[in-house]
């Protein structure tokens, strides 16, 4: 059966390109002015701390996990994640960086923009890699994320990710713009699993 799922990138090449782009973004003026903080998990993954600003001026921190599984033929895999934490009185420990569920404090609520939306529980087509078959998962819906290309979207030529032109910086700037737009509403909820 033919698959619409792109082939994964050679991990060594993807890691090298990802590292190069990551260094350029991390040391740039836009990372400084936006206050992005980078936590490298392994050669193919990084978590970036970004902040949203509500119309009231209140700020909220989020963690965005970017992956280079298909990089840079395709944009990075992208999801908002919950940060690890130790166990406390009434909360269990959280190990690793787990995808922020619907209603999570770690998932931003953004009213749909023409160029960006966050779907807390999106039903990806069956058989699509990077999506749990039959189980809705998060979709950061923007042509600068990998998941956009496996979810039946049809960007025009000028909107499509272009290898050599775009870097993971494009993913971060789009997210940052959404989180500082008038459409940003704050965390999706109070769930902190």
């Amino acid at each position, binding site marked *: 059966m033919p698959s619409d799922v792109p082939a994964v990138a050679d991990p060594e090449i993807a890691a090298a390109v990802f590292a190069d*782009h990551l260094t*350029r*973004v991390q*040391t*740039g*003026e*836009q*990372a400084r002015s936006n206050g992005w903080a980078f936590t490298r998990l392994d050669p193919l993954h990084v978590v970036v701390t970004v902040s949203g600003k509500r119309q009231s001026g209140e700020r909220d921190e989020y963690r965005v996990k970017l992956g280079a599984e298909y990089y840079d033929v395709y944009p990075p895999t992208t999801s908002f994640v919950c940060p690890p934490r130790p166990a406390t009185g009434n909360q269990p420990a959280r190990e690793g960086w787990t995808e922020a569920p619907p209603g999570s404090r770690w998932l931003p609520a953004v009213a*749909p*923009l*023409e*160029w*960006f*939306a966050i779907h807390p529980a999106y039903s990806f087509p069956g058989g699509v890699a990077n999506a749990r078959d039959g189980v809705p998962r998060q979709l950061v*819906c*923007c*042509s*600068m994320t990998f998941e*956009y290309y496996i979810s039946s*979207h*049809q*960007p*025009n*030529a*000028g*909107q*499509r990710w*272009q290898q*050599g*032109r*775009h*870097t*993971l*910086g*494009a993913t*971060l*700037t*789009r997210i940052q*713009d959404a989180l500082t737009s008038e459409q940003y509403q704050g965390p999706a909820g109070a769930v902190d699993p």
Partner: protein
Amino acid sequence: MGVEVDGIEVLAEDEAVTAEPVGPDHGRRRVVTVANKDSAETIRLRVPVTEAIESVIEAMHAEFRIERSADDRLTCRGDGEDVYQYGARTLAQYLDEGHCPNLHWVFVGGTGGA
């Protein structure tokens, strides 16, 4: 030292800029900063005020190693005004008319979503 192309000099990221006197004639050269949202890189171009905005745009494309696409936008960071429409103006004319006094532009390509 930066790299100079057709009178427009690309400044290195850490290169200090010597302020030139800015009077009614805007000095001889001004620094244009362009933030590229497609790569999250930012460049600075030292531009003679007699250069056309179109030349600055060409230098920007060359530095970012991209070709112009119909969905691209180049705007002033302060007020969001489109820069492309002033391509035929010189930098001095652009400033004389009161556009984008801090010369900080934002470049971004098209984005699909929702």
